[in-house]
């Protein structure tokens, strides 16, 4: 058996399915439901076995068309930075508010992706988010929580 990344993913899925199955068996059901033909743990148990079955088959059977990924050509750095910015965005959006964090997120993302046209970067962040907020909050009446804009009196 050739070890490749697809096989490793299948192995991880096999382990995940085994853990899922174990957790499914631990689901507490009501006493009167324990021996019922179907209770809260029945479907998850079937799913756990299905996961073991398909990932097991993928592990055992030979790969007919192996996927080769050239990791040297992948842009890990920029992708990692973008994910990090998104995490910071997620962490601050509730406390700081939608407008400021979203605008800063967009501005920072443009910058880290290599953009240096400052005016365009600004236009596609702060005014763009303001316009989008107006569309959602002002026109479509979708509530947007923004403590920052509320504190300066822009939003009610």
């Amino acid at each position, binding site marked *: 058996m050739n070890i490749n990344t697809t096989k490793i993913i299948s192995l991880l899925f096999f382990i995940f399915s085994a853990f899922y199955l174990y957790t499914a068996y631990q689901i507490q059901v009501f006493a009167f439901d324990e021996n019922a*033909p179907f209770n809260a743990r029945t479907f998850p148990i079937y799913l756990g076995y299905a996961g073991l079955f398909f990932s097991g088959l993928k592990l055992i059977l030979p790969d007919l068309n192996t996927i080769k990924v050239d990791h040297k050509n992948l842009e890990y750095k920029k992708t990692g930075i973008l994910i990090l910015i*998104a995490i910071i965005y997620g962490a601050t959006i509730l406390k700081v508010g939608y407008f400021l964090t979203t605008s800063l*997120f967009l501005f920072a993302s443009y910058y880290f992706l290599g953009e240096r046209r400052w005016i365009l970067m600004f236009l596609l962040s702060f005014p763009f988010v303001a316009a989008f907020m107006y569309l959602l909050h002002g026109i479509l009446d979708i509530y947007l929580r923004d403590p920052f804009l509320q504190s300066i009196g822009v939003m009610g």
Partner: protein
Amino acid sequence: MIEGILIGLTTALTFQNILMVMVGCFFGTIIGMLPGLGPMTAIALMIPITYGFDPATGLILMAGVYYGAVFGGSTSSILLNAPGVPGTVATSFDGYPMAQQGKAGKALAIAAWSSFAGGTLSAIYLLFMAPSLSKVSLSFRSPDYFALMILGLTAIAAFSSKGQFLKAMMMVVLGLMLASVGQDSLSDITRFTFDNMNLTDGISFVLVVMATFAMSEALTIILKRNDPTSAAKQVSLTELGSIKINKEERTKMYKTIPRSSVIGFLIGVLPGAGATIASFLAYGMERNVVSDEEKEKFGKGSVNGLSAPETANNAACSGSFVPMLTLGIPGSGTTAVMLGALLGFGVQPGPRLYMTNPEIFWSIIMSMYIGMVILLILNLPLIPYIARILAVPKNYLIPLILFFSVTGIYVMSFNNFDIYLMIGIAVVATFLRLYDFPMPPLILAFVLGGLMEENLRRSLLLSNGSWEFLWDRTLTACILATTILIVVWHIYKTFKRKN
């Protein structure tokens, strides 16, 4: 039915809904022209906007996006030989050679008229077929539904996996596992929440769609150093030439369109098949039925060769609405996203939809037709200008996709946990995409997970825990036999390819 059509027309022809079809078609065309970003991403990105509308308007907007995306995909197929969506690959076989001969405008016009005719005819088929099928499907029982869901999941795994059936089935199981998180619908017992309150209500459908499509596609573009906007830049520079179709070409199209629309519609109705298979089948069939002289032109700019797949892929789009509207079971990843959105609105599609919410049922059907007209009269002449809008660098496009994804989750839950969970799922999905693990089966399974468990529960309880319900009814047995046939055919095909 006349009353229904009138209800649909009244709803679809309001100013707001016509505007939504136009916006949807326009936005869909933009996204569809970007190779790598398909209709599912386009629809997912629209979900936050639909929160502000009633279900009919929301769905009309999404249907417009769907058609627009398929039309946009045809444009980049014809002009650049770079299909924006898989359903338009066959379009490039004759569309691109025609464009190279300096007839780009004509090729686009043939594609647009064929799409229009295919969409119109299939909307008419849908008009007649959906109510009858709704009535038939009222006789469906839980075992039939359960079997139908198994068929749908197996079919989408077989057809969308590009020869990687086991990978697709693993994604199906993963989708069902994700759907099982949270409270059990009947007993309210929490499952797989690990004492985290945020998971009690389960994982949101919008979160999974945004993570596995919009966000993960954006991350994949950066990771693989792709530039989807470069195609649009080239389109904006292309000289289209005349868009007039002469009498001889029209005569050829008159023959091709009816037969291709029937193939497209029927393939679209089948769970999991969709526009890609429909367009290839129609292309193949057209090649077999035309004269030897015309056959020679295939691959070199044949009118029939361009018209057939374009008619079929649009007809398949309408066809894929049939199982969703009548059975509540989506036939494709894209309609799965729409089904999820409908469930979010509190509307349960299925055989009773057309009785309980006739305005939704009929307005979708009517808006399909309006969408086709709009694509023809607005988008065709606007292609070079739309492409100019698209020629923004990916440095702007990617953050904007991420922004739409996070906004979609934020306005839904106002919860940090959901944003982290979305980023986590998106990272895993990006990695899985690198190794060709398909995402549409995961979405379909996630949407169907709850319904599948419910129908299995009812079936098992009614049969006292016995699995005999799978072959007790002829209909259930037939559906399961079809599922087995698909699996056997797929295994046979794989072995044939290996040898």
